[in-house]
C-alpha cells in the first residue's frame, strides 16, 4: 500500500527541522547557538504552509490509521501556531539563561510532532504513539533547569504521574482490543454496536482509557501534578504544557470518545460531565487562593479544562445525535483555539516580567501599568479573555460551550450550563484581582526596567490583537471550526 506523503508532509517537515536543529546545535558555538530558534521557526512556517495546503482535502493513509480532514487540519493549525508563539516567547528566555538550547528546541519540536499526529490518528496504537511522542520530550523539558530543585521536582512528578497514566491507558487499550478484536477506532465502534455492549469489563477499560487522557488534560481528580509542574518548569515549557500538551490530550480524547466509544456515550458522557463540574469548580476555588501568578494560571488552566470537558458531558450515541455531538466537538475545538491564544499570551507577559528578576508573586506585578503600559494592557486583555468578557475571544469560547448545550436542552445540560455560569463569576474574582494589582496598586521602588525583547513583544502584541480582533469578529474562527466534523469519518 503506497504511503500518501502529501498527507504527512507537516509531520515530515517538523521531523526534518528537529533533526536539523539538533545538528545545528552541534555545529554552532557560543552565542551563535541561539540561531537554532529562527531555524525552528522557519521549519514551523513551512509546516504551516503544507498544512494550509491540505485544507479542504480528505486524505487517508497507512490503511485507515491516519486521516487528514478539515477537523485534523484545524487542529494541526492550532498546534503549529501555538508552536510558533512558544518559539517566540522562548528565544530570549533560553538564550539568556544557561540552558541547553539545541536540546530544548529539539525536544520542543519532537513533542509537537506528536501533537500534530494526534488529531489525524484513527487507531489506538497510533494514538498511543502520538501521546508518548508528546509526553516523553515534555518530561525532559520540565527538568531542563537541572540545578534547580523545583525544576527537578516538577520533572519527577510529571514523569511519575505521566507514566502511571499511560500505563493505565495502555492497560485499558489492550482490554478494548481484547473485547473488540481491532485497534481501529471506527472498527471498535462497529464491534461495540454489533456485539454485547454491556460487558462490564469493556466499560471498565473504556474508563481506564479516559482516565489516562484525564491526566493529560489535568482534569480533577487527576490534576495535582499540574500546578507543581507548571511552577517548577522553565516558563515557556509551562506555557507549552498548559496549552499545547493539554490540547493534544483533548485531541486524543475527542477521537477516543466521539469515534471509538461513541456507542457507549450514555455511559461515559455523565462521567465526563461530572468530572467537568469538579474540574472547573475545584480549579477555580483553589485559584482564588493563589499568590503566585504562574500557580494562578496553572489552577486557572485546570478550571479551563473543566469548561472544555463540558461538551463531552453532552454527548449522545445513535444516528440522531450527530447534531449534538458535532456541536460538542466544535465547541471544544473553538475553545482550544481561543484558549491557546489567550493563555500563551498570559505566559508571554509573565516571561517578560519575570525573566530577569525571577519575581512572580502577584504582588510583584503591582504598578505594571506604570512600568510597561503595553504589557499591562496585554495581560489585562488575556486575563479578561480567560474570564470570558467582551470583546475578547474568550467570550465566544464560553459562548460556544453554552451554545452546544442549547442544541438539545437536557436537564444535565442545564446543570452543566449553570456550573459554567457560576464558575465564570468565581473566575473573574481572581482574574480581576490581578488586573487590579496591575492598574491600581503602586509599584515597589527599585524594580529594573523591563526589556521584553523584540520577539516576545511581537508575540504578545500579535496575540493581544488576535484576542481582541477575534473577540469582535469571532466569525474568523467559527467559519472554520463550524464545518469540521470528526464524525464524518466515524
Amino acid at each position, binding site marked *: 500500500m503506497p504511503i500518501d506523503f502529501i498527507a504527512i508532509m507537516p509531520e515530515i517537515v517538523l521531523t526534518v527541522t528537529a533533526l536539523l536543529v539538533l545538528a545545528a546545535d552541534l555545529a554552532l558555538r557560543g552565542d551563535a547557538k541561539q540561531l537554532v530558534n529562527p531555524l525552528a521557526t522557519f521549519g514551523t512556517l513551512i509546516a504551516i504552509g503544507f498544512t494550509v495546503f491540505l485544507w479542504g482535502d480528505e486524505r487517508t493513509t497507512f490503511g485507515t490509521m491516519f486521516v487528514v480532514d478539515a477537523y485534523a487540519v484545524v487542529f494541526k493549525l492550532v498546534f503549529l501556531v501555538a508552536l510558533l508563539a512558544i518559539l517566540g516567547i522562548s528565544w530570549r528566555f533560553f538564550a539568556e539563561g544557561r540552558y541547553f538550547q539545541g536540546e530544548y528546541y529539539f525536544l520542543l519540536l519532537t513533542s509537537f510532532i506528536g501533537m500534530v499526529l494526534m488529531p489525524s490518528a484513527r487507531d489506538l496504537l497510533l494514538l498511543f504513539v502520538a501521546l508518548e511522542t508528546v509526553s516523553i520530550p515534555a518530561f525532559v523539558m520540565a527538568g531542563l533547569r537541572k540545578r534547580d530543585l523545583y525544576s527537578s521536582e516538577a520533572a519527577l512528578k510529571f514523569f511519575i504521574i505521566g507514566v502511571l497514566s499511560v500505563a493505565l491507558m495502555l492497560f485499558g487499550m489492550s482490554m478494548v482490543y481484547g473485547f473488540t478484536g481491532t485497534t481501529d477506532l471506527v472498527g471498535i465502534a462497529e464491534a461495540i454496536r454489533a456485539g454485547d455492549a454491556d460487558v462490564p469489563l469493556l466499560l471498565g477499560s473504556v474508563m481506564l482509557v479516559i482516565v489516562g487522557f484525564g491526566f493529560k488534560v489535568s482534569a480533577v481528580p487527576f490534576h495535582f501534578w499540574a500546578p507543581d509542574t507548571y511552577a517548577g518548569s522553565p516558563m515557556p515549557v509551562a506555557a507549552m504544557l498548559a496549552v499545547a500538551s493539554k490540547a493534544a490530550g483533548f485531541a486524543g480524547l475527542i477521537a477516543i470518545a466521539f469515534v471509538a466509544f461513541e456507542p457507549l456515550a450514555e455511559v461515559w458522557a455523565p462521567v465526563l460531565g461530572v468530572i467537568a463540574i469538579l474540574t472547573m469548580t475545584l480549579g477555580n476555588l483553589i485559584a482564588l487562593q493563589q499568590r503566585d501568578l504562574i500557580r494562578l494560571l496553572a489552577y486557572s488552566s485546570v478550571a479551563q479544562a473543566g469548561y472544555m470537558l463540558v461538551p463531552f458531558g453532552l454527548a449522545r450515541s445513535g444516528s440522531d445525535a450527530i447534531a449534538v455531538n458535532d456541536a460538542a466537538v466544535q465547541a471544544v475545538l473553538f475553545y482550544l483555539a481561543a484558549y491557546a491564544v489567550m493563555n500563551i499570551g498570559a505566559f508571554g507577559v509573565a516571561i517578560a516580567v519575570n525573566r530577569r528578576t525571577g519575581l512572580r508573586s502577584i504582588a510583584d506585578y503591582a504598578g505594571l501599568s506604570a512600568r510597561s503600559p503595553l504589557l499591562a494592557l496585554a495581560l489585562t486583555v488575556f486575563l*479578561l479573555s480567560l474570564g470570558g*468578557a*467582551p*470583546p475578547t475571544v474568550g*467570550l465566544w469560547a464560553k*459562548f460556544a460551550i*453554552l*451554545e452546544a*448545550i*442549547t*442544541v438539545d*436542552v437536557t436537564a444535565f445540560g442545564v446543570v452543566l*450550563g449553570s456550573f459554567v*455560569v*457560576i464558575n*465564570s*463569576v468565581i473566575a*473573574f*474574582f481572581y482574574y*480581576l*484581582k490581578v488586573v*487590579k494589582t496591575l*492598574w*491600581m496598586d503602586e509599584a515597589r521602588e527599585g524594580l529594573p526596567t523591563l526589556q521584553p525583547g523584540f520577539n516576545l513583544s511581537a508575540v504578545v502584541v500579535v496575540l493581544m490583537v488576535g484576542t481582541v480582533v477575534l473577540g469582535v*469578529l*469571532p*466569525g474568523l474562527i*467559527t*467559519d472554520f471550526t*463550524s464545518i469540521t466534523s470528526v464524525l464524518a469519518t466515524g
Partner: protein
Amino acid sequence: MGWISITIALPLVGALVLAVAPELSARGVRAVGMGATVLTLLTSVALLTQFDLSEPGLQLLERFTWIPAIGADVALAVDGVSLLLILLTTLLTPLILFASWSSVTDRLRGYVAAFLVLEAAVIGVFASVDLLLFYVFFEFTLIPMYLIIGIWGGTLRRYAAVKFFLYTLLGGLLMLVAILYLFGQAGTFDYEAVRALELTITEQRWLFVAFALAFAVKVPLFPVHTWLPDAHTEAPTGGSVFLAGVLLKMGTFGLLRYALPIFPDATVEFAPWLLAISVVGILYGAVVALMQADIKRLIAYSSVSHMGFVVLGTFALNATATSASVIQMVNHGLSTGALFLLIGFLYERRHTRQIAAFGGLAKQVPVMAGLWLVVSMSSLALPGLNGFVGEFPILLGTFQENRTAGVLAAFGAVLAAVYLLWAYQRIFHGPLEGADNQNTVDLKPREIGVLTPIVVLIVAIGLYPQPMFDLVEPSVDRVLTEVGVSELEVEPAATTSEEG
C-alpha cells in the same frame, strides 16, 4: 454607515486617537475628549431630526454581517425610547468630561479614553436590535466602568469595583443563557424575529426570570441593589454621574425592550410581584437614605428609591404610567446626575462628604446652594420641574391598576422630600461655623457652565414635557399592545389581592 453607527463610532475614534497619539498635553487630551463627545452629541441630534414620530416601531435600521456561522448581525435601530436614552447619554458624557476638567489629573488619558469607550458601548446597548450584539455591549460596559471606579475612585474603590463587576456579570451570564435558548427557538438573534416567537408559558416564566434578574441587578432593584451604594460612593464624580445617569437606565430599558414584549404572558403574571418589589425598593431606599451621614451615599440610596419608581411605572402596564416611567428615566439621569456633580464640586473644595462637616454654606456659596435647591426640588418632584411630570403620572397610572402599590409608593415620594430637604438644610442652612465652612468658595464659571444645560432641561421638561411624551408614547404603546394590557384591566381585583 448610517447615523447610528457614526454615533457609536465617533467616541471610539476619539479613544483610538488617545491610544495611539504619541505625545499629548493634558489640554490636548481634554480637547480630544470634548471634541469626540460634542460631535457625538451633534450626530445624536441629527438622529432625532431623521426620526419619524408617527412610526412606533424600530427605525433607521442599519445591518452589517457579523458572525455568518450563527447568523448574528450588527443590527442597529432606534425607537422613541432608545433614542431618548441615547440623547441622554450623549448629553451627559461631554458634561462629565467638562466637569472633571481640573479634578482628574492622574492618568488623564486613560480616564478620558475609558469614558469614550463607555459612551460608545452604552449607545450600542440602546441601539442594538440583535440580541447577541446587545449582550456584548451590555457586558462590555462593565470593563471601562470597572476601571473608572477602580483606578480613579475613593478609598474603598477596589472593593466597590469588584463588587460592581461580579454582581452585574452574574446577571448578564444568566441572560446570555436565556438568549441562547431564544436563539435555539428562533434560529436567529434578530430582535423582531425573537419578539415574534410564540413561547409557551413555562418557557416564558423561566426566560423572563433570567432576563429580569439581569436587568434587576442593573437597575438596581431591591434586594440585588447592594452593589450600588458602594459603587456610587467610591466612584469618581464622573463615574457616579455616568452610573446614575446612564448605566442604571440600561436595566429599565432592558425590561421595557426585552422582558415585556418577548415574554408578554409571563410579564402579566409576574407584574404584581415586580410592583411589590418596586414598592419595597422605593420605601427601603428612602428610609435608608434618611439615615445616611455621607451625602454621596444618601443620593446613592435615593437612586434605589427613584429607580424603583421607574420599574413601578413600567410594570403598572398602563399607558400613562409606562410612558412616564421612560420620562422618569431621563429625569432621574438629569437630577441625580446634577446632584452627583454638585457633590463632586463640594468634595473638591472640602475633601469630605460627611453632612455633619457642613453648615450654613448658603451664605458662603449662594450659587451652589441655589442650584442644589433647584436640583433637589427636581429630584423630589416639585410641580413645575421635570421630576413631577415623570413621577406624578407613574403614581396616577399605578393607582389605577393597583391601589395598594400606588398608595405605598406615594409615601416614597413624601420621604424623598424629607431626606433631600433635610440634607439641604443641614448643609446650607444653620450657623456658618468653622474655618473650613467659612472659606468654602463658590462655583467657578466652568462649573456653572456644566450645570446650566441640565438645569435648563430640568425647567424646560417640567414646563413643557409634551415633546418627550410624543417621542416615547408610540413605542410604549406598541410594547403594551403586545403585552395585551386589556387582559390586566379586566381583573384588577385579582392583582390587588395578590399584592396585599
